[in-house]
Structure formats: structure tokens, C-alpha cells
């Protein structure tokens, strides 16, 4: 009667101790947080006396995992960006034209002359002057297709080529598009991560969502404007030869040229050769600096191949202007004074210090392969977050106290057992949350409060059952045993259904809803554990010690 095997008792108390052990750091939140930050800083930049002192605030042998606070509690910025994957298709097709032209040139006798036709950006239209040579043209252009390298696209090639009348229409195959999307999004993710790391904030979350979306959460940032300036800029840097300049934005550019506006002067336009001499991809370093007039500027250095191209070009074109183009805008167009051999240079423009610093970060991290659209954007100020934490804390304490008092008044001594179990339950819940590194959000706190209310349910079921069994007068020990036994199926069914909904919430939900699902789901698991096993052990211990003839529940 009311016996539990020794090993079971050890396991139960062991789990309780483990839960409390892992929950412990949360009781000293600021201290542990400073310790963690200091440890990370020491790893990164070496130790200083100050960092060592901060690290010593929390003993190293204790666990230091904390429940992360969500953006709604800590304050910060949240952005959901969609990568314009289709942008990349267009530029891919653009670069295909010279290849098509060169491939068809030797076949001039059968296909005649070839001309690029205007078309929507997702296809390449080429007109041949001898429609009867279409067969041959198709064969040649299809020969340019490459096999797609991806798991899903195995066996297919990247181009689809069709002939309509005298026009060849080249489009990208579905498999190639998918493979390109994948590459584009991965590359964007990597570049965003590098850019944010360069700015250096605590624990940013940068996750891919779905096929073409990226979720960025940065705690402690006051506005998304700053964040968007960092990640929203494509930062495509090119160095292009200047053909001419004027004030007409619709100036005839000529084949292979383009007209771009000047960034620093309203109404000024440059005509540039489209093919760049060097691009930002060949940069190895960029640093903010000041030019000889003391204005903010950015210093850059090319890799060896970039340096060679840059050096050769400057040697051959002394005296001509040369445009530095960033995201379709000419930042500056200096005249080449001399041969620049070392592969380093300086970009001047109308920068503020902040802009030059940002530009340096962007150039170092590399250009985004495609532009981003921001679909969702949330900024929570740190004060609001702190208010929510404070309110949540007070509410939790009051809610807990009310439930504890209520249980004691209703069930007396047994209520005390249930209350101890409830406190253990909360500690274990925090322990598990810390262990898995979960994020606590405001709805998450509500989930905990709800758990507090519902956690007693299992015990209420058991105690009510014991009361009933006592009425049929089988003696206290038997009544307790039967109470636990018969309440079991109701407890299991009731909690499993709640777990089902928590799982669905977790899978389908996002952000704060997910945080709520985690605390609710874990709360159910820990509350059933403490209610069934822990209170039972406590009651058994009490019962063996006192051997009461009658009990009141």
C-alpha cells in the first residue's frame, strides 16, 4: 500500500532536483546574463580584468542557461523580408544573350543574322533573319543548356528553348528556377547574417521561413529604420567607364551603355558602359576613413585579380573619368589621375560619418543577390517590454498566491502537498525552458499563468476521488490508493487533448503564439508529472510517518 520502489523514488526526486537545478539561473537573471555576455566576449576578444570580474559573478560549475526573453518583453525589432528571387532570373537571362549570340554566329549561313528582341524580363527573345534555319538554331542554343545541380532537379537542364515563327524564346526551366531560388535565399541569409554580425548586437535571430522569406529579430534595437538601412540595401558596387554626362535622363545611351543618375547632384546623369571593369565582389576589405579634405569616405582594397583589372584599366585611361556605382546610382565619378597599382582606393561622396561606416560594413559583407521586400515589421520599445515583464511578474505572483490559498482552504493538508507540487512544477517548467533555450513571450507568461490554474486540476481530480472513496469507508490508505488509480484515466484523457491542441498551435503558429504553445505544452507535462508522482510520494511519506486512522481531504 502506497509503496513505491526505491528506484522510482530516486528517479522522481532526481528529476525534480534536476529541474530546479536548471531553473536556478533564472532567479539571478541579470547576474547570469552579465556572466554569459562576459564569457562570450572573452572568447571573442580575449580577457580583460573587467570582463573577468563580470564572468566571476556566476560560478562556472552551475548551469548558465536562461529563458530567453522574446522581443515583446525585451524590446527590439522584428522584420519579415521576402527575397525578390525573380530579380535574379532577369539578370541571368541578360548575361545569356552574349553567349547565344556567339554560339549562333558560326551558323550564320543557315540562320542568318540574329537580333535581340524586347521582351518581358523572364524570357530572352532572339530574332533570326532566316526562319527556315530555326531547326538548326534551336539545336545550337539548346546545346548551351547545362544540367541543373540540385537534388530535386537531377536529370533536367537549366534552359528551355522554343521557336515561334522567326523568334527563339529562351526561358529558365522550372528546375533551374528552383535551384536558383534556393541559392539566392541562402546567399541572402548568409549576407544578412554577416551584416548584422558586423554591427554586433546580442543574440539576433536570423531564420529562413518558407521558400523565399527571411525572419530577422534583433533585440535591443530602438527602431527598424536602422536595421533596414543595414539589411535592406542591396549594396551592388561596380566601377564603370564613363561615356558622357548630361542633364537628360532619357538621353540615348547607345548599345551596351546605360544612363544612371548621380547620387550627390540633383538632375545630373551619367552615361556609362554597361559592362563593369571591376565589381564589389572582388573587394576584400572596406573601412570608413576621411579623405584629404577631412570628409568621411570609404577606403577599399581589391583581391589580386580585382587589383590587376583595376590597375590595368587605370594605367590605360589616365585622364578619363571613371564612375563608382552603388545600387544604380553614381556615387562619384573621379578623373583617373595616375595608374593605381596597389589595388586599393577611396570612395568619396556626400557621406555622413554614419553613412560611410554603414557603407563599409555593407561592402565588407558583400552584396545581396536580390532586393528584399519587407512584409512584416514590428518594433517594441524597451520600456514597453519592461512594463510587460513587470506586469506579468506581479500578475503571476498574485495568481500563484491566490491559487495556493484556495487549494489550502479547500483541501487542508492535502492542499499543502498540492501547493508544494505546484511550486516544484513552476520551477521544473522554467528548468526545461532554460534547458531547451526557449523564448518567453508575453502570451508565454499567460500560458504559465494558465498552467498554474490548470496544474492543480490533476490533483483536484485525485483529491475529489479520494473524498469519494473515503465515503465508502475502506480506510484511508486504500482510499488514497484508489483515488490515484481511478483518477488516472480522466487525467490522461484530459491532458492529452490539451497537449494535442498545444502541438497544433506549435506547428501552425508563429512568433508569440508559438511561445504560448511551448509554455502551455511543457506546463502540462510538468504539471501531470508533479501532480501524479510528486504529490503521491509526499502523501505516502506523510502517511507512513503518522499512520492516521482517519484522514480528511
Amino acid at each position, binding site marked *: 500500500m502506497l509503496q513505491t520502489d526505491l528506484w522510482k523514488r530516486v528517479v522522481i526526486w532526481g528529476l525534480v532536483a534536476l529541474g530546479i537545478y536548471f531553473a536556478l539561473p533564472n532567479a539571478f537573471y541579470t547576474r547570469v546574463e552579465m556572466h554569459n555576455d562576459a564569457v562570450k566576449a572573452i572568447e571573442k576578444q580575449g580577457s580583460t580584468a573587467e570582463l573577468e570580474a563580470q564572468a566571476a559573478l556566476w560560478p562556472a560549475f552551475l548551469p548558465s542557461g536562461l529563458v530567453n526573453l522574446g522581443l515583446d518583453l525585451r524590446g527590439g525589432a522584428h522584420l519579415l523580408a521576402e527575397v525578390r528571387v525573380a530579380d535574379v532570373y532577369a539578370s541571368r537571362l541578360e548575361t545569356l544573350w552574349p553567349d547565344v549570340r556567339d554560339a549562333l554566329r558560326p551558323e550564320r549561313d543557315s540562320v542568318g543574322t540574329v537580333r535581340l528582341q524586347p521582351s518581358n524580363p523572364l524570357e530572352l527573345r532572339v530574332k533570326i533573319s532566316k526562319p527556315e534555319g530555326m531547326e538548326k538554331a534551336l539545336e545550337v542554343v539548346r546545346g548551351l543548356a547545362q544540367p541543373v545541380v540540385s537534388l530535386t532537379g537531377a536529370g533536367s537542364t537549366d534552359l528551355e528553348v522554343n521557336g515561334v515563327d522567326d523568334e527563339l524564346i529562351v526561358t529558365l526551366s522550372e528546375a533551374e528556377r528552383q535551384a536558383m531560388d534556393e541559392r539566392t535565399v541562402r546567399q541572402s541569409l548568409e549576407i544578412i547574417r554577416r551584416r548584422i554580425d558586423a554591427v554586433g548586437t546580442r543574440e539576433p535571430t536570423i531564420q529562413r521561413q518558407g521558400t523565399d522569406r527571411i525572419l530577422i529579430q534583433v533585440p535591443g534595437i530602438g527602431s527598424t529604420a536602422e536595421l533596414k538601412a543595414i539589411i535592406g540595401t542591396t549594396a551592388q558596387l561596380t566601377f564603370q567607364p564613363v561615356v558622357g554626362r548630361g542633364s537628360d535622363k532619357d538621353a540615348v545611351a547607345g548599345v551596351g551603355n546605360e544612363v544612371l543618375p548621380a547620387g550627390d547632384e540633383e538632375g545630373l546623369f551619367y552615361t556609362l558602359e554597361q559592362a563593369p571593369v571591376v565589381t564589389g565582389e572582388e573587394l576584400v576589405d572596406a573601412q570608413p576613413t576621411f579623405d584629404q579634405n577631412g570628409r568621411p569616405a570609404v577606403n577599399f582594397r581589391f583581391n589580386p585579380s580585382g587589383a590587376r583589372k583595376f590597375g590595368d584599366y587605370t594605367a590605360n585611361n589616365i585622364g578619363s573619368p571613371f564612375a563608382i556605382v552603388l545600387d544604380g546610382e553614381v556615387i562619384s565619378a573621379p578623373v583617373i589621375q595616375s595608374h593605381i597599382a596597389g589595388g586599393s582606393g577611396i570612395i568619396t561622396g556626400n557621406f555622413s560619418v554614419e553613412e560611410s561606416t554603414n557603407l563599409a560594413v555593407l561592402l565588407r559583407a558583400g552584396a545581396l543577390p536580390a532586393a528584399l521586400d519587407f512584409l512584416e515589421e514590428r518594433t517594441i520599445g524597451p520600456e514597453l517590454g519592461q512594463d510587460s515583464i513587470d506586469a*506579468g511578474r506581479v500578475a503571476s505572483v498574485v495568481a500563484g498566491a491566490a*491559487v495556493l490559498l484556495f487549494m489550502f482552504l479547500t483541501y487542508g493538508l492535502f492542499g499543502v502537498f498540492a501547493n508544494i507540487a505546484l511550486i516544484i512544477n513552476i520551477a521544473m517548467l522554467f528548468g526545461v525552458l532554460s534547458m531547451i533555450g526557449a523564448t518567453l513571450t508575453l502570451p508565454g507568461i499567460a500560458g504559465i499563468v494558465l498552467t498554474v490554474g490548470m496544474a492543480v486540476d490533476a490533483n*483536484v481530480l485525485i483529491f475529489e476521488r479520494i473524498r469519494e472513496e473515503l465515503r465508502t469507508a475502506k480506510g484511508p490508505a486504500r482510499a488514497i490508493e484508489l483515488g490515484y488509480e481511478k483518477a488516472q484515466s480522466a487525467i490522461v484523457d*484530459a491532458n492529452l487533448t490539451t497537449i494535442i*491542441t*498545444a502541438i497544433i498551435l506549435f506547428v501552425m*503558429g508563429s512568433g508569440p503564439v508559438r511561445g504560448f504553445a511551448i509554455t*502551455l505544452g511543457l506546463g502540462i507535462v510538468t504539471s501531470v508529472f508533479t501532480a501524479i508522482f510528486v504529490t503521491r510520494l509526499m502523501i505516502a511519506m506523510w502517511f507512513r510517518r503518522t499512520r492516521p486512522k482517519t484522514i480528511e481531504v
Partner: protein
Amino acid sequence: MRMRLVPDNTNWDFFGRSKLWLGISGVMMVVALISFFVQGLNYGIDFRGGTTIRTVSAQPVDVGGYRNALQPLELGDVSISEVFDPSFGADHNVAMIRIQAQDEEEAITAEATEQLRQALSTVAPDISFASVESVGPKVSGELIQTAVIAVLLAIGAVLIYIWLRFEWQFAVGAVLALVHDVVLTIGVFSEVQIKFDLAIIAALLTIVGYSLNDTVVVFDRVRENLIKYKKMELKEVLNISINETLSRTIMTSLTTMLALIAMFVLGGDVIRGFVFAMMWGIFVGTYSSIFIASALLLRFGVKRDWTRPDANSGNQYSNIDA
């Protein structure tokens, strides 16, 4: 002496007026649905896109002044409301400004936010934005779709679970009670026009879980009593089961309610709608598990032969030692 919310050994008749209760619930559901279709829900930006800004200022909120200040920006539909909470001091005045989703823009731009701040600072010079949330129409459409799917999935999963654990009549009874709770909750949100956002969906699903929890505990007892009292009339069995579990039903609802009331009063205004949804849900959930689920079960009828096939007879291993 112990506190007793429900006296011991109650034998209240819960089915004498079951038609009345079902009728009331039916009418309430119709009212809720009419309200939903006529008035609609006050969707938050999660579901219809747009921007909400929480402003804080030491000056009292001047809704008209704010509106006039924003007029020249031509933002379309703008709604401004003051937020009250007992924890705010006299120099902490909060307003929520909601702006409809702008054309050809997904999320709000930084420049637009700055323009808004400048426009508002003509009315309240010290105004600051405690939070700015913006959701593009593309995402909001998906969010509402996911939310509906989540609620339907939860109900479906639970239907299957109870069907497996009990009988189909129980499953249908529980799920109808559940639909009742969800419909009434949506009805209240439509009637009172509280902001309906993603968090409310979480609350709805919690209500689904909680209401079931209650219903399942009663059904579990019904199953037990069906085995115990083989000859008793079904109505009697149901009534006994509800009476036996009544004390627990009230007790658990009350502790949960206590916790939620604390959260409602002290948890701050950000979460109040969410907590309100749960409080209401627990109220109707408790009601429906006592008055609706079992009354439906009575109308469906259940199988009365709950004797399990004897494990030792009839299967291929039973006579192994014989």
C-alpha cells in the same frame, strides 16, 4: 472546517430542463453568428494588414488633435483610441493609432514612421512611439488562413482522439460543445468589438483544449458509470456522473479563473484582450461541459454493453496450458 464549493453528495437534476439549456445555447449561437456576419470582427493588423502605433506622451491624449495632425498625410482609414490601464500614471498617456495598409507598400517605411512622429509632435511635442507594428497584406492573408486551419485541425484531431478513446457519440457530443464555445467566443468578440488578432487565435485554441478537458472528465466518469450501473437509464447515469464530477469541475474552473483574473487586472493592457478571451472561454467551456455535451450525448444515445471481451477466452493463446 474545509471550504466546500459544492456540497457533498449532490443529486441535482441537470436534465430536467435540458431542452431549455440547449435552446438558450442555440439562440445564443445564432445571435453570435448573426453578429459575426453583420458586424464582423474588429480584426487587428495581423489579419488585415496595416500599421498600429502605440504612442506615449506626458500630455493627455487628444484624439481629435491627433486625427487633425495626421489628416494632411493622407493615410486613408486611421483609427485612434486611448488606452487606459490602472498602472499608468498621470503623465503616462497611451494611445493606439491604427492605419490601414497603404497601396503598393507591404510594411511601413521608416520615412513614413518619421513623418507620423513629426506630424504628431505638433500636438504633443514629447510624443514617443512605444511600439510600431506593421503587417503587409500579403502576410496577413496567409496568417488568417493558417489560423483557421489551426482551429479546424485542433477540432478534428480531438474528434478523432475521443472517438478512439470512447465512442463516436461522445466525440460528436464533445466537438459540438466545442464548436458552441468557439462560436460564442467569436460572437462576444464581434459584439464587444475587441481587437481580434493572432493571440486571440491562441486563446481560442486554449479554450478548445480547456473545454475538452472538462468535457472529457465528465465523459470519463460516464463511461465508468455505464459499466457500473448496467441497467440504469442513460439519463440517470449521465446525471450521476455530472453530479459526481461537479465538485472537481467547479474547483478547477475557479482556480483557473482566479489565475486569469489576476492576469486580467494586473497583466497590463497589451494582453488584456487575450486574457479576456480565455476567461470567457473558460466560463462557456464549463457551462457547455455540464449542460450541453451530456445533453447531446443523451440525444445521440450510447451503446450499453460495455463488457470487454474476456481476455482469456476466445483468442488463440487462451488454451495454451490446457
